């Protein structure tokens, strides 16, 4: 990474990544947005039985946090996990198929939105339990350290999750054992209806890093470059054996918490304000500014990603349902032990 190029006017991302990588990142952010919109639409059209938690507005956090990860590196995700999954390289068709409960889905229709995982790409899975992924991420980091794989784990969790005891225990042990894990708090201001002010006795969640003697930084989670800069540094630190870090991406979810949210706990104005800070538009503008893409290129990307989503939905819709007689398959591992 061009550490010598210290032009303050050139954002980190533009300095750090090639145009191809940046365009791929923008594309992923668009895919996330459109996946969520497609999910929402499918839900409205009655195709979905369960619930869903959309990450529209948080795309920069998901993609920016995974920039320096390889398929060997792991992530743990949350109930609001579609974006992380796409960022880590998932197949959109298999994601939709899972969302539709199909046998071709990532979980063969057993998991649904809240459990989509992609172990082959290092995504250990979304989690229905708030905070559930925090210790699991530390465990993955422990494996990496013991087995000497050099892999890093990025652990996504929400502002709400930071008040779970699991947060405290996981960060403490990660620090005591200097494990290669980066805790990425996606602070979207609310855990369901409860604002951080009403639930969290500290101003910045990143400040809690002091309790674990690890670096903590709060960044604009809607600024792709700021997110990438902070998380890349933390990943590098983890990879070089210096231990865990906490990065807080301040962001906002545009939609309700889940399908049934009446948005009683926040104002229309607040939502509108945040929508003006659209992370995708911001990212596109930055790339246009630095001549990495132009308006037409953006439009072409829009069209391309729209088509990908369309194809993914077509694949998913046309996929078979699981066989009901196999409802209890995969509770245990069938094959005999080695």
């Amino acid at each position, binding site marked *: 990474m061009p550490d010598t190029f210290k032009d303050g006017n050139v954002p980190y991302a533009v300095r750090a990544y090639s145009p191809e990588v940046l365009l791929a990142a923008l594309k992923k952010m668009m895919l996330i947005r459109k996946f969520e919109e497609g999910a929402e639409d499918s839900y409205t059209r009655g195709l*979905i*039985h*369960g*619930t869903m938690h959309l990450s529209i507005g948080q795309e920069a956090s998901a993609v920016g946090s995974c920039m320096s990860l390889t398929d060997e590196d792991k992530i743990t995700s949350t109930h609001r996990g579609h974006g992380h999954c796409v960022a880590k390289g998932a197949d959109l068709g298999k994601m939709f198929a*899972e969302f539709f*409960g*199909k046998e071709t889905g990532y*979980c063969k*229709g*057993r*998991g*649904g939105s*809240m*459990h989509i995982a992609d172990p082959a790409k290092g995504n250990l899975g979304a*989690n*229905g*339990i*708030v*905070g*559930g992924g925090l210790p699991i991420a530390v465990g993955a980091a422990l494996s990496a350290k013991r087995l000497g794989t050099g892999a890093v784990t990025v652990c996504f969790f929400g502002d*709400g*999750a930071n*008040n*779970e*005891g699991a947060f405290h225990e996981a960060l403490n042990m990660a620090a005591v054992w200097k494990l290669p894990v980066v805790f990425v708090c996606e602070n979207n201001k609310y*855990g*369901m*209806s*409860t604002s951080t002010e*009403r*639930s*969290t006795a500290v101003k910045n969640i990143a400040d809690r890093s002091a309790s674990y003697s690890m670096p903590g930084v709060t960044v604009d989670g809607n600024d792709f470059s700021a997110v990438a800069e902070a998380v890349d540094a933390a990943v590098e630190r983890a990879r070089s054996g210096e231990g865990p870090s906490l990065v807080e991406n301040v962001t906002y979810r545009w939609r309700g918490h889940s399908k*049934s*949210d*009446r948005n*009683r*706990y926040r104002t229309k104005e607040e939502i509108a304000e945040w929508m003006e800070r659209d992370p995708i538009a911001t990212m596109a503008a930055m790339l246009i500014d630095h001549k990495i893409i132009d308006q037409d290129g953006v439009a072409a990307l829009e069209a391309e990603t729209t088509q990908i989503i369309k194809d993914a939905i077509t694949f998913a819709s046309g996929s078979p*349902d*699981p066989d*009901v007689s196999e*409802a*209890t398959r995969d*509770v245990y591992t069938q094959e005999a032990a080695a």
Partner: protein
Amino acid sequence: MNMQAKPTLRELSYAEAIREAMDIALSQDERVILMGEDIGVYGGAFQVTGDLVEKYGTDRVMDTPISELGGAGIAVGAALTGLRPIFEFQFSDFAALAMEQIVNQAAKVRYMLGGAVSVPLVMRFPAGSGTGAAAQHSQSLEAWLGHVPGLKVVQPSTPEDAKGLLLAALEDPDPVMIFEHKILYKMKGPVPEGYYTTPIGKAAIRRTGKDVSIIATSIMAQKAMTAAETLAGEGIDAEVIDLRTVRPMDRETVLASVRKTGRLLCVYEGVKTLGVGAEISAMVAESDAFDFLDAPIIRLGGAESPIPYNPELEKAVVPQVPDILDAARGLLKGRI
């Protein structure tokens, strides 16, 4: 059933009935507080608390941070020192985070202290499958708490009982755990106005019959009633008992029924193995009612599997009306 019930009946949903019980409790007793995640302005994940926060304020309808263990423990401490908390878990599955406070503290502190204190604590657990929320949001874990001395555990299956059992729980000086079924929240039924209680520890005979005793819990009591109507058409006269309380179990009502019918079918949504039906079966098999049994005791419980997401799979892993019909017919095959 409820002798104190006022005559005026209206139709309320199960959720509304619970809310009405909490409203009555909050208005009658300053010591009552509600605690839980998003039970205030959001109205609760299943809209059970609804707008109670507007009437009673955030000091009495308290949104907690997402901290189930700590929240439950605070409720225990508050109950020990003069308040009467009603603690809502957003989903019963999250009780797994708070078992320590429920089981090691709330259930035991009275006994451990030689009776010097009591813990008048009510906890509410939205339970069960059917919402497409998959394995971590669909469990029926009443058997865990039913195994724990010091607790009382109830499972209302009607709006009337949901209200009456909650008010009874608040009168109880000991911790009472209420497992509510999510799919029942929208079910309507007649609910007496005003204050009344439904006794904890008493099963309800929903239908008398002479051929087979169907003992069912929670939503399965509803399904059993549906099945019983069909069975009646086939000449099978089923007695349907809604267990209502898992701990302490209503031994007398169950045994009396089995002595009469000689056949027992237990229907429950929780995982079959070590679920509530295991206890019902074992209780009967070790009693004098054993001698009245004309057939094996059949249990219909949840499959030995987590709850899947896909709706058809989800239905397949918990007992449905046709399963009850098949089981009852099987039990009576010899006779017919």
